């Protein structure tokens, strides 16, 4: 991860978002030993069930990775939770808004 990331929280520009998207995709692929290259993940494809084919154990794994990397604690009781894992793009949007590191 030697990308030139800015540590300051601010409204993410499209460029920043692209960097974060690649970073999160790489984290997901590594954490879950997925059989795809990070760049091959369609950012609008569902992560859960059909699509990338993740299940609830994967979601738990991603939640832990995301909390460790970005300080985002996920909770299952909100409607948001379904949306967060709707796609890579939505996960990245959620991290962008809620990250504490």
């Amino acid at each position, binding site marked *: 991860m030697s990308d030139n990331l800015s540590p300051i929280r601010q409204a993410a520009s499209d460029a920043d978002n692209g960097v974060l998207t690649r970073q999160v995709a790489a984290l997901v692929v590594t954490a*879950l*030993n997925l059989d795809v290259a990070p760049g091959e993940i369609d950012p609008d494809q569902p992560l859960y069930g059909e699509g990338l084919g993740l299940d609830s154990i994967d979601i738990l794994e991603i939640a832990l990775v995301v909390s460790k990397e970005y300080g985002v604690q996920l909770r299952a009781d909100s409607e948001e939770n379904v949306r967060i894992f709707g796609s890579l793009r939505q996960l990245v949007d959620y991290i962008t808004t809620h990250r504490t590191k």
Partner: protein
Amino acid sequence: MIAYRAGEPIRVAQFLAEVERVTPLLGPGRHVLNACGDRYQFMVGFAAALVSGKVSLLPPTHTPEVLRELIRFAPDVVCLSDDPAADFAVPVVHYPPTTPASGSSSARMPQIDSQQLAAVVFTSGSTGTPVAHRKTWGRLVACVREETRQLGLTEVPAAIVATVPPQHMYGFESSVLLALAGGELLCAERPFYPADIAATLSSVPRPRVLLSTPVHLRALLASGVTLPPLSLVVCSTAPLAQQLAADIERRFSTLLLEIYGSTETGQIAVRRPTAAAEWQLWPNVVLSSQGEETWASGGHIEQPTRLNDVLEITSSGGFLLHGRVADLVNIAGKRSSLGYLNHQLNSIPGVQDGAFFHLEDNRSSHTGVARLAACVVAPELDAVRLRAALRQRLDPVFLPRPLLFVARLPRNSTGKLPQEALRALAAAHRQPARAG
């Protein structure tokens, strides 16, 4: 009191009123597939089936293939669901909307004949047909009464927070039945993320018990969340590493007990991993060795049952666990066998040959779950179509990762597939993918 929802107590009278309300909805058939995700509503549905002489069916998963087998087993089955969008291949009875707490019943706690068949729990078997295990009410009750003694839950009723589903034998016994027949208090929630577990535990008063699995306990430690005081953590479904047990006890200042059991036998032994590697067998349960196999009988066990693990019986009457029988697979508490998975894979039109296998270094870092891999010869199928077909037949945890398309499987001269040859094949396939 019998349960909590969002920290609010649910009284026995309210529970009985709800059982009375649900009972007539189940119709004239004798079998109920209880798919309620809410643990309290599952308990109401189970009790409603029980008082009307119906049998609750608990399959390991709800894939279309398993439901077809279930209908063959019980053509009159209806599905009780609390999901308004439930779409099953069997008639769905929707759990009625909850009425205000005023709905109280004058009914007494019903008495159930101990010979009555209360539940049929299924394992996946090895040939494609699920195997049914019958559970009578009396033996289920005997089992959880012993459990309360073994776990030391004999004083003040404890609030049970469980991360396992009520449909799984461990969750069924140790959350639903501990409340219904053991006098403990059921928490309706099924917390998932570490922060949810902390919130549900905090919503109820002491004494609190957390009923979980190695996957969720590992996640709890990794997350760094803080938990309110916990009297006891119970773990089952897969062996817990001694170090993980020690970390849990230290971090949360609690006691961790591990339960050994199976769908066939229910729970039969307990140990505290930080104190001893040896399991203590429950009173009246008897183990016997027959060659490589170990059989369990006596106590609440319905019939002598071959265990799926390799056990060493110790001089003190307990045992040591030496892993699973080779063919068996346990992923995050879901059980199957390579034989069953291979049967399902090879039943898909277009698959000429295929095999599942264990892959080393396939463990995810935080939950510690390792997936299976599969090699397949299916020139006319692509990964998307094959995965979709597998999804119809298998629980998602068993979907292969990676799924490798090959020209032929590395069978040896006797037609057998050495696991080593499969792993070498997987390694060869992985190199280019990792480089790109």
